[in-house]
């Protein structure tokens, strides 16, 4: 069994680590420190933490101002609020002037600790990807999350990190090296190519095992950076098998599937299927039941892969 780690804890610990090397870091919290683990900094390095209260629009504008003067603000809230509530402030005062503001979007995807519809944002990737100058990263595990925090902190310009709430399997070893904008081959295969992003990649790994047991060899590629997207990497992986399935804990509109379709449609058209949330909002429920109802389990990914292969025959 792989080790299970909560990405939010990794995020908080990495932020604390950064306060020692980056004196200009400042964590701005939307009053969720004890959910997002910004509390790790609030308790241990209080000078690097400010609660902006329950007022995300103001928080985004404050971050813009801080960045313009040379600080590196990391905003911390739920993905649903960061991608929506303060969107105009993000658009006009952060992305248009290309300011150095980092967003930690916690509780992303449908597994939000039973909080339900209002706290589930099915479209954060679509929304943030559509903002010019924005970098969008969805790590698969805590190893990658930590490296992404470090890389995004040292990269100039606005960036969004998509973080999952509950503990997930650690799939990358300590020798793993994350690079912004590069896809990551996970499994070699020849029958179809599967692109996954965020923690959905870990479920896609299990789907590959299911498919293998039925004699289907899937080529799995992890896409941590949704923007800027790795055009060459996607094309090369698609070319390997000529059939592409994408899978994501996000709406089937505008997310990983959309990004891959935009690339392959223009550079290397292949038969393709987009797997994810079927253009619906979520609800409250335990994780396993949620994944089952909304069709995000490895079994569902494998079924989508088989549907793609059958259609292709």
């Amino acid at each position: 069994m792989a080790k299970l780690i909560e990405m939010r804890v990794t995020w908080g610990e990495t932020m604390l680590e950064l306060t020692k090397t980056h004196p200009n870091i400042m964590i701005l919290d939307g009053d969720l420190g004890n959910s997002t683990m910004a509390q790790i900094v609030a308790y241990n390095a209080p000078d690097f933490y400010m609660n902006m209260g329950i007022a995300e629009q103001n928080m985004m504008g404050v971050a813009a101002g801080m960045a313009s003067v040379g600080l590196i603000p990391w905003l911390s809230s739920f993905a649903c609020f960061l991608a929506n509530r303060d969107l105009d402030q993000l658009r006009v005062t952060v992305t248009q002037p290309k300011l150095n503001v980092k967003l930690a979007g916690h509780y992303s995807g449908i597994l939000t600790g039973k909080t339900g519809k209002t706290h589930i944002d099915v479209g954060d990737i679509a929304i943030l990807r559509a903002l010019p100058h924005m970098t969008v990263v969805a790590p698969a595990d805590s190893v990658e999350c930590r490296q992404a925090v470090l890389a995004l902190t040292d990269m100039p310009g606005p960036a969004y990190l998509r973080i999952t709430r509950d503990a997930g399997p650690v799939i990358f070893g300590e020798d793993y090296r994350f690079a912004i904008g590069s896809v990551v081959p996970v499994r070699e295969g020849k029958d179809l190519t599967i692109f996954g992003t965020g923690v959905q990649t870990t479920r896609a790994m299990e789907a590959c095992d299911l498919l293998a047991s039925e004699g289907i060899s899937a080529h799995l590629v992890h896409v941590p950076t949704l923007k800027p997207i790795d055009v060459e990497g996607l094309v090369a992986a698609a070319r390997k098998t000529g059939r592409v399935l994408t899978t994501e804990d996000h709406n089937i509109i505008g997310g990983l599937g959309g990004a891959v379709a935009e690339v392959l449609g223009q550079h290397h058209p292949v038969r393709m299927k987009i797997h994810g949330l079927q253009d619906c909002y979520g609800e409250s429920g335990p994780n396993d039941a949620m994944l089952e109802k909304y069709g995000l389990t490895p079994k569902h990914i494998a079924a989508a892969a088989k549907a793609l292969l059958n259609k292709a025959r």
Partner: protein
Amino acid sequence: MPIDPALKRDLQAKAVQVRKLILQAVHKAGAGHVGGPLSMVEIAVAMYFKILRIDPKNPQWPDRDRYVLSKGHSCIALYATLALRGFFPVEEVFTYDAMNSRMQGHPDMTKTPGIDMSSGSLGTGASPPLGMALAAKRLGKDFHTWVHLGDGEIQEGQVWEMAFVASQYQVDNLTAIVDYNRVQQFGFPKDGNVRRRVNPLVQVPEKWRAFGWHVIECDGHDFDSLIPACEEAKTIKGRPTCIVAHTIKGKGVSFMEGDYNWHAKVPSPEELAKAFAELEAAQAG
């Protein structure tokens, strides 16, 4: 003016039932909020058992009073109250947060009978009630609209955008209730202590007055104070009213009261038993 003692006893008994249901439901779900729900129990009970013009058998009645729980994270208190009032069976409260349940983690007007507006993203619940009140005036309807806000929630700018427009249009069929318990989710250090955290927002009544609202302060856990405040609010003409209800987060359970750690924490079996014992002792005494 104190209310009828028999009514008061009845409402107090209801409040104890609601508190027990909150704690049991969160315990069973293994998730959910506790402090905020316990803070609003008397307000919800006063609303549904005394103040609101409603019909549990006809939750969509067009002429009903509207009540919007803008601090939607506290909805388990509302579900328990609605159940006791007959909107749905009490057992259903224990499906809170379960798959396919009508008792969602945050209020969903498409699922739960008696919920007048979906809420959960703080501040977003503030404005629809103003729309309801304006629509009532436009359509010649005499229902009253209530919006229940958290004191942390009113840090959101949207609340004050609503406050400005409501007084501009003299919306006197709208009453806001601020659940003023002085604690939010994570909050700010008290006296420099990072482990004791509060909502430092001050001069709350003055803020609403400055926006042109009539303001009434009351004790949000004392029906003798709360119910007259609600009744007065309905009589004020020419401007909206804000009831600043002084409350205690986690009210009724000593080890939860005023502690931000209990904002959204699940009581263990021992903690649940201890809480029940305290609630029963207080009721007996």
